């Protein structure tokens, strides 16, 4: 029989046991661990921040403007820091980072309903396909780039529902932060530090006999997991979850509100070595009042994401942090006729997303749509093509097979998908 993943993980962990259970390793420890993890090829492991625009971003009003088309809308294109690339006038700060980024204007995907499309874009698979639940990109990054020993969680999802770890198991589920302004749930003990440490000491004492008598793998995993959770509670890195600790000056440029705080938290998390953070900004389902809404939302993205890119660069982290901005599909090239303030409807056939940093060669555009922004005319990109590219940029082998139920080998990205990494790196 094959070793299941849990068993394999356990073997890897076994060496770290026997150390005092509440051993606190600080920030240096985490960095050292992550550096170790990457040692084989000598490269620094990368991180990824996914800015998820829930509802579907109107590509014609953000990243792929067609001012001369029928359904053009009111927004004007502006020049960016990358010659020849223009984006919406409501993304002026992001425009100054375009030389660090890549726009994909030829996304073409099969799902036109929100829930199924979200699942597809997060996992690369169709919901229900083959009777399995697939892991989302965050869980894949957590299992491939994360360290088992790190105090910090390997996947954090801020401000929204996320897709979890599927058949990879609960270990790679994200820590959910509902409201970035409030921080992470249950991170603080309900009692004083002193009493908490009495408690963990007592727990360890009380468990000794059980560990001794029932030397089961599950008990070892239980202990390891508790050790990590306690370590996290006491770690310096956990302060990354507290955005109020950020100096006011650097906080302001992200804008205000939950989303801005979420993006700021993402930066703080990446700084302490978290490999994958997803931040959700809802409200993009603009069937009605598209232009007013997209304008406001664009400003939020513009402030927060540009501040993020600036900060990452200042800290020397932009090269190793891939920032993705996307939603589940685009929106119709034509403006609908609903009400006095019309909008745009779901449109998966041709749409855009953007990526920054992560070692990309910036200032590039992948793919093209026709004059209406309705059909991909050059270099169509399927979800799998895109996810395979993201994997390659992050240093993940997308052809690797994970073991699903009954030992079924499932590739991280299904075969038949072609990354376009060489065009952007």
């Amino acid at each position, binding site marked *: 029989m094959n070793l299941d993943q849990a068993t394999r993980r356990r073997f890897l962990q076994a060496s770290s046991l026997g150390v005092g259970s509440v051993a606190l390793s600080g920030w240096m420890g985490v960095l050292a661990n992550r550096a170790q993890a990457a040692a084989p090829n000598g490269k620094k492991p990368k991180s990824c921040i996914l800015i998820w625009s829930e509802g579907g971003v109107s590509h014609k009003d953000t990243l792929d403007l067609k001012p001369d088309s029928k359904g053009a809308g009111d927004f004007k294109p502006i020049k960016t820091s990358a010659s020849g690339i223009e984006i919406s006038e409501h993304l002026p700060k992001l425009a100054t980072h375009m030389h660090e980024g890549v726009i994909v204007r030829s996304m073409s995907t*099969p799902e036109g309903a929100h829930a199924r499309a979200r699942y597809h874009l997060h996992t690369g698979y169709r919901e229900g396909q083959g009777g399995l639940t697939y892991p989302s990109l965050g869980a894949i990054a957590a299992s491939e780039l994360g360290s088992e020993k790190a105090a910090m969680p390997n996947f954090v999802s801020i401000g929204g529902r996320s897709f979890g770890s599927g058949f990879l198991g609960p270990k790679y589920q994200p820590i959910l932060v509902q409201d970035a302004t409030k921080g992470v749930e249950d991170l603080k003990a309900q009692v004083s530090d002193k009493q908490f440490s009495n408690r963990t000491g007592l727990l360890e004492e009380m468990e000794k006999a059980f560990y001794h008598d029932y030397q089961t793998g599950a008990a070892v995993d239980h202990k390891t997991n508790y050790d990590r959770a306690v370590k996290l509670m006491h770690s310096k890195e956990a302060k990354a979850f507290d955005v109020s600790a950020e100096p006011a000056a650097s906080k302001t440029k992200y804008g205000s509100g939950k989303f801005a705080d979420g993006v700021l938290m993402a930066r703080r998390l990446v700084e302490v070595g978290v490999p994958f953070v997803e931040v959700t900004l809802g409200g993009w389902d603009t069937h009605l009042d598209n232009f007013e809404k997209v304008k406001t939302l664009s400003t939020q993205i513009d402030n927060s994401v540009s501040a993020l890119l600036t900060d990452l660069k200042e800290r020397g982290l932009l090269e190793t942090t891939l920032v993705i901005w996307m939603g589940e599909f685009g929106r119709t090239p034509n403006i609908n006729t609903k009400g006095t303030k019309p909008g745009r409807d779901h449109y998966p056939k041709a749409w855009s997303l953007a990526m920054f940093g992560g070692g990309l060669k910036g200032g590039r555009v992948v793919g093209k749509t026709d004059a209406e922004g309705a059909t991909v005319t050059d270099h169509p990109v399927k979800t799998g093509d895109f996810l395979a590219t993201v994997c390659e940029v992050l240093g993940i082998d997308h052809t690797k097979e994970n073991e699903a139920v009954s030992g079924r080998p499932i590739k991280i990205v299904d075969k038949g998908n072609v990354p376009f990494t060489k065009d952007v790196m």
Partner: protein
Amino acid sequence: MKTLRVFTLAVFSALAMIGSSLPAADVKADLKAQRIKAKEEAAKKAADEAKKVEEAKKVNDAKAAELAKKAAADAKKTVSRPSALQDAPAVAKMIDSQIDARLKKDNLPVSPIGTDADFLRRVYLDITGVIPQYEKAKAFLDDKSTNKREKLIDELLSDSHYGRKQADIWGAKLFTVDSDNRFVQKEPFTDWLKDQFNQNTPWNEFVSAIVTATGPVDENPAVTYFLSNRSIDKLTDTTGQHFLGVRINCAQCHNHPFTSTKQTEYWGLAAFYSKVVPQRPKNAVMGGDNTKLTVTEGASKSRTKEFFPESAKTVAPKFFGGDEPKLSGAEPYRPALAKWLTSAENPYFAKAMVNRTWAQLFGNGIVDPVDDMIDKNKPSHPELFEELTAKFTASGFDVKYLIKCITLTQAYQRTSKHSPSNKGDAQLYSHMNVKMMSGEELFDSLAVITGLVSPAPEVKRPGMKYGNGGPRASFVTFFLAGADEVKSTTYEAGIPQALKLMNSKIAGNPAALKQFGTGKPADIFEKMYITTLARRPTSAEIQKLSTHLAKASSPTEGYSDILWALLNSSEFSMVR
């Protein structure tokens, strides 16, 4: 596995998107939803908050009374029928002789029978899905009669929690929530499953009722199976995986790589479901009422949208690995399927249930994984498997009898402490496997102790929009995402779960301390241990606890630390 399908789908959908009716329908729904949503959400939020506060209060105040009331109502509502068969002890002997023979052959020394406390906690969790309450536990530990283990097994199989535990397990298998079925109500179905298990409906009749279910869901909750598995391939996969113990889904798109299963076999089995018409659930966010959804079987191939995947092949109904029955086009197909599926002659049906039940109790199937009963995956005890299956079939597919036969065995009752020489054994039963509590078991057990998480809601809420919510459901989701694919012998929780148990109000609830009284420390320690671990503390443990208590700044603090540590211990969340 399905590259071809995905690729063609992508192309097709992209083409079809122009003027397709699917997005249009979506758009309409979304529009309406948007208008109503904003208003509703604000009102709902306020109401929800108020409700939460009130619920929390209620739970705290009248927790004990409520629990008792619910248990009484529950007991009244459900008819529990015991197994009528008397020869379970003889079958248990047969099982033991087979297991012992194999152990002897492999020269594996056998661990001794576990203590009463081990048995008590294990059998409570395995049969009823919850730890014993203090009084019950103490009474059992102090009972001097020799047949008390068998008596307890009988008592627990008659407890309505037995049906609920099975409903939790089977509900998750037969109704996996996805975006197509998220508005379909799950609770009527799990209630129905619970009643069937409690009534000990013979497994063949039980499965027939599911597979042939027709009508509106409020009259026949079994139709939920078709409302939740909204396509012919999902139905076929579930039938194969859960009722036959074989994963046949690979054969959907290509011939199975490990078995002789051909694509035509797959679609032949699927064809029995080809005339089913499950009504489309309404959008519950917009107040859609899904309490009366109907499932029918038409006279010809179903035209329900998305019922057939692109890979579907149209072939005549054919029994899996068997014949093509003669069916006229107009007659319903499913009764023929049910008859073949649940027949005593079907080589998979009874075996699949025996193997699943075995795995529930031992943490490991006779064939493992349990849904991979293919030729290459040999059973650990082939003769035992055959004989137990024969007994189960001859009993008239009596599930309670099957559980009694297994739980009566020495093998089941062995300690889960291994000896140095049988340490590596997980499949030959020289000692018991330690299992993890399921999310439901953890929730319900914590509810018994802390009173802060409310127990499974038994009250039906008719106007409920979602029907799949409640604190228990969200706790389970939080603790065991993807649990169906995880073995009960592996610990799969992560940091968020540990944080929740350590730092939320669950384990740190000072009110929970009250039940342990104000007596002598030794008495309080004993009550705490029996309540949480169903055993008395050892003298070494009493020593440690006393030391801690003496150090603590107040007795309350000391005791609350001890309860906290007990609830966070691995021994608590494991079935030893």
